[in-house]
C-alpha cells in the first residue's frame, strides 16, 4: 500500500496542513474539526508505526527520495515510536477537551488561532520526534516553541503575557544554544544526518569543538526540558496558560526535549564519550537530586494549585534525568517509563483542574476549598492522579519509581533509593495540600452547592486518569517499549 509507506511523513504533514486550513475556515466549528481530525489521524498513524517497529524494525523514509546523507531522512525506531504515541495520543485527548474549555478562557474571535497554533505545535513536536536530521530538529523545535509562546499568551490572566515573554526569551536562548551545538557538529563532520554524523564523529570524539557542541546542546536542551536550575520559566508559563494548553505542554513539550537529549547522547555522541569520559553523569545526578528535593519542597508551599503542579513537574523531571544519569538499560528504561507515566498523569491532572477552574473561578487552594463536596468526580480524579505522583502501588507512578529503585540498586547505590523514597514523602505533602483544601475545608461562600464540570471536560480528563491507573497495572506497553528502546540505544554502541 502506497499510503502506508508514507506514514512517517504524513504524521507531520497532516497537522502542519490543518493549521492554514483552520485559519482559512476561521469561523464556526470547522477549525476545531480540522485540528481534531489531524490529531486523530496522527494518533492512528503513530499506533500503526508503533506496531510496525515494535519488534525492532527501523523505518527510514527519504523525503523526495533523496538518499540519506544528502536528503532529509525521517526515521522511526522504537524510541521515536514511543514518543510519537505519547504526543499524538495526548493531542487526541486534549483537543476534544479544548473545545469547551477555551470557550471559557479565550475570546471567541481568537478560537481559530488557538486551533491553528495547536496544529503547528503538534506538527513541530511530531517532527522533532520523527526526523533524523539535526537541522530539521531545530526547525521543528522552533515551530513548536513559537506556537507555544503564543498559546501561552492567549491565557486570560494578564500575567500570561509576561510568562510567555520570559519563556520566549529563555526558549530562544535554548534553541540558539542547540543550533550552535549543531553548527559545531556540522563543522566537524560535514553532515546533518544523525546516523551519518555518529559514524563520522567516531574519529573526532575528543576534539574541543565536539566537547563544546556537547556542552551547548546539553545546556540548550536542559533549558527546554526545565532541568534544575534552568527551570525558572516553567512555573509561570504553566500557571497562566489556558488549561488545555498547560495540559498538552506538561505532557509533551519538556518530554520531547528530553527525547532529543537522549537521541543526541546515545545515537550521536555515543554513550562512551558522554557517560564514561566526561563528568556529565555526576553533574546530571546532582542536578536531578536538587530538582527532586528543592522543586518538590517549593511545591509544598504554593498557594496556587496549578503552580504547585508546575513545580511538581520540575521535581518529576528530576526523576527522569536521574534514571538517564545511570547509563544502564534499567536506568534508561526507568527514565522513559517515568516520562511516559508522568506525562499521562500530569496531563490528566491539569485537565481535571481546568474543569475545576471554570466552575470554581480560580486555581488557588482557597478557591478549591470544599471541592470534594461540590465537585466529587473532579476532586476524586485529582486525588487518584496525586497518588500517581506519589507513586502509590496500583498507579503508573509506582511502576516508574519501582524501576528507578531497581536501577539504583543495580548500581549498588542504595542511598539513592532512600533519596527517591524521601522525595516521595515531599510529594505526599504537596498532594495533601489539595486533599486538605478539597475535603476538609468548607467551600467559599457563593459557590453553587453541587455542580460538576461539563461532561465534555470530565470525560477526556478521566480518560487520562484511567490511563494512569491502567499503566500502573498493565505495563506491557510502557515497560515493554521503554526497555526495548533502552536496549536498542545502549546495545548500538556496544
Amino acid at each position, binding site marked *: 500500500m502506497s499510503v502506508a509507506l508514507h506514514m512517517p511523513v504524513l504524521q507531520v504533514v497532516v497537522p502542519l496542513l490543518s493549521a492554514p486550513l483552520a485559519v482559512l475556515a476561521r469561523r464556526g466549528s470547522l477549525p476545531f474539526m480540522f485540528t481534531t481530525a489531524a490529531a486523530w489521524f496522527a494518533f492512528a498513524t503513530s499506533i500503526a508505526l508503533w506496531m510496525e517497529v515494535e519488534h525492532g524494525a527501523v523505518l527510514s523514509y527519504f523525503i523526495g527520495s533523496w538518499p540519506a546523507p544528502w536528503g532529509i531522512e525521517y526515521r522511526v525506531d522504537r524510541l521515536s515510536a514511543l514518543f510519537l504515541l505519547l504526543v499524538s495520543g495526548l493531542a487526541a485527548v486534549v483537543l476534544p477537551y479544548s473545545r469547551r474549555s477555551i470557550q471559557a478562557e479565550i475570546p471567541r474571535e481568537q478560537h481559530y488561532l488557538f486551533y491553528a497554533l495547536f496544529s503547528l505545535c503538534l506538527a513541530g513536536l511530531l517532527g522533532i520526534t520523527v526526523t533524523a536530521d539535526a537541522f530539521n530538529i531545530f526547525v521543528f523545535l522552533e515551530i513548536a516553541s513559537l506556537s507555544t509562546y503564543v498559546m501561552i499568551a492567549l491565557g486570560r490572566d494578564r500575567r500570561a503575557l*509576561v510568562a510567555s*515573554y*520570559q519563556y520566549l*526569551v*529563555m526558549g530562544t*536562548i*535554548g534553541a540558539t*544554544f542547540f543550533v550552535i551545538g549543531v553548527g559545531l557538529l556540522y563543522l566537524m563532520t560535514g553532515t546533518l544526518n544523525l546516523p551519518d554524523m555518529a559514524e563520522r564523529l567516531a574519529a573526532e570524539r575528543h576534539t*574541543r569543538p565536539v*566537547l*563544546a557542541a*556537547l*556542552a*551547548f546542546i*546539553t*545546556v540548550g536542551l*536542559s*533549558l527546554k526540558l526545565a532541568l534544575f*536550575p*534552568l527551570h*525558572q*520559566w516553567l512555573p509561570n508559563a504553566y500557571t497562566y496558560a489556558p488549561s488545555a494548553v498547560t495540559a498538552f505542554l506538561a505532557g509533551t513539550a519538556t518530554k520531547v526535549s528530553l527525547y532529543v537529549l537522549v537521541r543526541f547522547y546515545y545515537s550521536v555522541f555515543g554513550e562512551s564519550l558522554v557517560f564514561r569520559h*566526561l*563528568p*556529565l553523569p555526576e*553533574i546530571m545526578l546532582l542536578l536531578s537530586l536538587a530538582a527532586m*528535593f*528543592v522543586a518538590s*519542597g*517549593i511545591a*509544598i*508551599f504554593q498557594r496556587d494549585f496549578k503552580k504547585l503542579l508546575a513545580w511538581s513537574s520540575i521535581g518529576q523531571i528530576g526523576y527522569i534525568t536521574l534514571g538517564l544519569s545511570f547509563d544502564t538499560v534499567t536506568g534508561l528504561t526507568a527514565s522513559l517509563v517515568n516520562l511516559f507515566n508522568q506525562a499521562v498523569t500530569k496531563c490528566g491532572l491539569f485537565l481535571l483542574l481546568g474543569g475545576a477552574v471554570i466552575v470554581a473561578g480560580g486555581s488557588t487552594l482557597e478557591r478549591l476549598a470544599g471541592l470534594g463536596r461540590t465537585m466529587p468526580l473532579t476532586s476524586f480524579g485529582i486525588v487518584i492522579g496525586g497518588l500517581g505522583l506519589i507513586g*502509590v*502501588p*496500583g498507579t503508573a507512578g509506582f511502576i516508574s519509581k*519501582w524501576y528507578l*529503585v*531497581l536501577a539504583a*540498586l*543495580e548500581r*549498588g547505590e*542504595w542511598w539513592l*533509593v*532512600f533519596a527517591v*523514597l524521601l522525595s*516521595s*514523602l515531599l510529594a*505526599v505533602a504537596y498532594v*495533601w495540600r489539595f486533599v486538605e483544601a478539597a475535603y*476538609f475545608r468548607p467551600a467559599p461562600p457563593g459557590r453553587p452547592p453541587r455542580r460538576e464540570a461539563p461532561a465534555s471536560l470530565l470525560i477526556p480528563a478521566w480518560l487520562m486518569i484511567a490511563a494512569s491507573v491502567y499503566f500502573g497495572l498493565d*505495563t506491557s506497553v510502557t*515497560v515493554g517499549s521503554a526497555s526495548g528502546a533502552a536496549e536498542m540505544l545502549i546495545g548500538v554502541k556496544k
Partner: protein
Amino acid sequence: MIIDLPPGLLLLGAGLLAPLVPVRMRAAFLLLAPAAEFVQLLSLAPGMTLRSEVFGFALEWVRVDRLSLAFGYIFAIAALLNVIFAWHLRSRLEPSAAMVYAGAAMAAVFAGDLLTLFLYWELTAVAAVLVIWARGSERAFRAGFRYIVVQLASGMLLAAGAALRYAETGSLAFGAIGLDQAGGVLLLLAFGVKCAFPFLHNWLQDAYPEATVTGTVVLSAFTTKLGIYALARSFPGTEMLIWIGTAMAAFPIFYAVIENDLRRVLAYSMNNQLGFMVVGVGLGTEMSLNGTVAHAFADILFKGLLFMSMGAVLFRTGTVNGTNLGGLYKSMPWTAGFCIIGAASISAFPLFSGFVTKSLIMTATAADGRLLEWLILLFASAGVFHHAGIKIPYFAFFAHDAGIRCKEAPANMLIAMGLAAALCVGIGVFPGLFYSILPFAVAYEPYTASHVVAQLQLLVFSALAFAVLMRTGIYPQELRSVNLDFDWLYRRAAFCAVQRATTFTSGCIHRLGAILSHAAAWMLAQGERRTSAGQFMADGGSTRGMALWVMVMLVSYLVLYYI
C-alpha cells in the same frame, strides 16, 4: 494444591460492594463475608499455594501454613465481631472501610512474597485511616494524618527492603530473613513500625483513641497483629527482639497509670502486650513462637472486648475520661461484667485466656535461662493487672459515683461483647483445643498447682498494692493533662526544622539568583549607558537572572569537559 480465591478477597469485595447495598441490609450483608471467609479458611490445608508471574517476578499470592492459618482464623473472627458490634451504624464509609481493612490484613497474612505483602500492607494503611477519619472531628483528622504518614513510611521501608533483598538474593520470598544483610534491617524497621517498637510506637496511642466508638475496636485487631505475624515469619530467634520486647512490655506501664483517657490507657496496654509477643519472636523456640501466636490470638479477643466495653461507655455517656466516670455498674451491669471478663483475661487470671497464652512465653523465657528478662516481664505482668485489670473497670464502673445514669449498651454491642467474652473464657477453660491450632505441637500444661498459685500470688499482691496506694492517696490522680511522649520530638521539633530548611534552601537559590541578576544588572547598566538601548524589561530582573543561570551552566559544563 491450588487455591481458586485468595483468602481475604471475600472481605475486600464485600467491603467495596457494601456502600451499594441498601442501608437496612448492609450489616447483614457484611456479616456474611467473614462467615463465608471462615468457612473458606476451614477448607484450606497447609501447603496450598497460588503462584503466578507478574512484571517478570514470580509472585506467590497465597501461601497456606499453620502460622498463616492461625492468624487467618482470628482475623475472620475479629471481622465478624466487629460487624456485630457496629450493627447500629448507618454510615456508608466506616463499615466498608473496616471490612476492606480486615480483608487487606487477612490477604497480607497469606501473602507468600514481599511484593504481595507490600500491596496489602499499604492497603491496610489506607483503609485504616478512613476508619479513623470516619469520626469526623478535627482531632481525629489530624491524628489520622499523622497515622497515614507513619504507615506509608513503613510501607516505603518495606518496599525499599524488598528491593534491596531482591538485589542481594534475587528472591522476593517472604520467609525467614534475618539481619545479616541491609535488606533485612529495613524490613525489620518496616515491621517494627507496625508492631509499635519503642520510639516507633506513638502513632498507636495517638490515633486509636481518636477513632469512633466502633472504629477503635476495628483498629485494635489488625495492624499491630499483622506486624507481629510478619515479625514471627521473618525474624524468629533474633536476639535483639528479646530486649526490644521487654522494653516494650515495661515502659508503657508508667504512661498507662497516669493517663486519663481510658481508651488511651488501653492503647498503652496494647503496646505492653505486643512486647510479650515480640519477646516470643525473639526467643524463637517452638514454644515461644506458639506463645506469640497464641497471645496475639487471645489479645485480639480480650483487647477487642475491653475496647468494646469502653466504646459502649463512650457511646452511652459521651466520655471515657477516668475523671468524669464512675459508678456506671448500676446503669450498665452487663457491660461492666464483660469488661471485667476482659480485664481478667488480660491480667492472666486462671481460667481466662491470658493465663494459658502468656504463660507459654513466660515459660519459654525461663527455659532459655534468661532471668533478668523474665523478671522484667513478671513486673510487666503485674503492671498489666494494675492498669488494665483494675484501673479500667474500677474507674469506669466503680470508684466514686459520678452520677451518670444512662441506658445499658445496645443489644448488638452486648452480643458482640458476649461472644468475645465467651471466647476468652472458652480458651482459658479448654486450652487443649485452642493449642491444637498453633503452628507447633504443644506439650505444655498450664494448670499445674505451682503455676496457678504463683500467678494468684502475683495478682493478689498487685491488687494489694493498688488498694494501699488508693487508700493512702499516693496513687497518681487522674488529671486532665497531656503526657509528653517521644512523638513530641518529631511532631514539633522536626516539623519546624523541615520548614526552616526548605524555606532556607529556596531562599538561598532566590538570593543567589538575585545576587547574580544584580551583577548582571550592573553590567547591563554599563552596557546600556554606552548603547543607550533603553529599558530591558519592566518585570523586575528575573529574566536576566534566568539567562545568567544559563551562562553559569554553560561555563561550568565547558570547564568540566575541558579539564
